[in-house]
């Protein structure tokens, strides 16, 4: 959010939706704008304007219980010292991380196998694509029938929303392995294991990354929604509970926290990308 330093280059690969079908963003050719000290403060203005308009219109038009910026800020210390809030925050964060971890540890091997062995792919491809197209929140009601209103249910739906994009991206990445790479490996008499570790896995890394990028966002949404629908201890339920108890300002602090969590997860993935896969470009057709 340090908008002043945001450059076009910095964000050119930010979205990277699906590796094979997103156009390759190129570094923008822009003149560096002079007056950068002034530019650094530009992002402050929208926040100020929004807060002001919100505060005034809320006081004029909206019922007293609805949130407004001054009271949200005043509610921050109260929420930040509330052990219930931290319990909810820890539960949600752990559930989302656990879901992503399960999605990764199942999705990577399954995707690799499906990518390398065509018959397995022909067998399961259509179901994976169908489930991946389906909004995963839609299976929350069904999963409450199976697993009850429980943490297991939350982990299940979170893991599923992470598993699907990771598996599909891995599958596509492994399948689209350029034949020249394999030819080279063959002519150097590489063993099967060496083809895997030396060629197939590194070549599919960019796909894995776009899979993980999609997975984190989806896992977050599904996790929070499942808490809201099934009243599972966590931030989503915490917010809905505060709002229903007419503690809107406290609830909104929860929203800000969830937003911060979403942003940090997303940034972590981006950081890991530049750190561990520096050659990554969103599109490698």
């Amino acid at each position, binding site marked *: 959010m340090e908008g002043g330093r945001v450059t076009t280059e910095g964000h050119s690969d930010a979205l990277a939706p699906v590796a094979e079908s997103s156009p390759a963003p190129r*570094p923008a050719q822009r003149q560096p704008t002079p007056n950068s000290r002034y530019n650094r403060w530009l992002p402050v203005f929208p926040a100020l304007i929004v807060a002001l308009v919100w505060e005034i219109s809320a006081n004029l038009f909206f019922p007293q219980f609805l949130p407004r910026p001054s009271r949200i800020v005043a509610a921050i210390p109260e929420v930040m010292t509330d052990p219930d809030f931290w319990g909810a925050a820890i539960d949600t964060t752990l559930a989302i991380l656990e879901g992503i971890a399960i999605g990764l540890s199942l999705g990577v091997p399954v995707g690799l196998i499906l990518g390398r062995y065509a018959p397995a792919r022909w*067998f399961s491809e259509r179901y994976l694509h169908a489930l991946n197209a389906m909004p995963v929140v*839609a299976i929350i009601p069904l999963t409450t*029938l199976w697993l009850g209103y429980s943490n297991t249910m939350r982990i299940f739906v979170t893991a599923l929303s992470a598993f699907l994009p990771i598996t599909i991206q891995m599958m596509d990445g492994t399948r689209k392995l350029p034949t020249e790479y394999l030819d080279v490996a063959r002519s150097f008499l590489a063993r099967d294991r060496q083809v895997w570790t030396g060629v197939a896995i590194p070549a599919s890394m960019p796909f894995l990354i776009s899979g993980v990028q999609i997975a984190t966002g989806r896992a977050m949404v599904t996790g929070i929604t499942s808490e809201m629908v099934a009243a599972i201890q966590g931030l989503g339920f915490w*917010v809905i509970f505060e709002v229903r108890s007419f503690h809107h300002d406290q609830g909104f602090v929860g929203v800000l926290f969830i937003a911060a969590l979403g942003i940090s997860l997303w940034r972590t993935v981006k950081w890991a990308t530049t750190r561990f896969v520096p050659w990554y470009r969103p599109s490698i057709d």
Partner: protein
Amino acid sequence: MTSMTGRGERVARIGIGLLSVVVVAGIWQLVGASVPEIYFATFTATITRAVEMTISGEILDALAASGFAFLVGMVISIVLGIPFALLLARSDRLRRALEGYLYALYATPMVVFIPFLFALMGVGLIPRLIVIVLHAIFPIILTTLEGTLSTPHQFLDVASAYGSNERQTWRDVLIPYTVPFAMSGIRQAVGRGLVGTVAAEFFLSATGLGQLLIGGAFRFDSAAVLATTLVITIVAITLTSLVQRLEDRFTPWREGG
């Protein structure tokens, strides 16, 4: 690859595909038969229930309600999102001021705003449209912005060398270059918009596919829940492949030759 193996592969592929339908439906049937119906209805019970719900009009009503909200939400997101992105691309200052927030909002799970919208507006179309637009608009804005900003400067140089004015530059260079990016944003927006539609209906609606799901789960009618999930999946696949096809159509000139 020779045509012999190509043909053999196609036969194997279709054969295994058909086999998988039989196997999956069979497993579904067996699992459904071996657990109480409140958990997981059999394949045949689900299909029967889907037919019943179609005849009674439940599914069509729900589809119409959800589909209408989804479509209006998508139209609003596109109509507001693309011009806004172009505006940001034109104004360096505005972009610097807002870009950080747009990425932050893009990464925020928008479902958390639902309780507040419910308190403010209750159950209705408007709060649901807000949820859908919140889900769909940010990928459209950000990918379109990215596309416009990443137009190779050679293209712009050529345009200015041949004396293009601002309007011509937009029409012949920037917009054609940006369309595929906007399409990829719209593809993302469709997926997110579906999430928004269903999640909004869980809380902000008395009708629609989301309510069919919630109602079915509440009555322990697993066949109805499975049937509705099946309908949602079919709609989602159709929409996804539709935008994918549109996007592919715009791909040829995206590499810029």
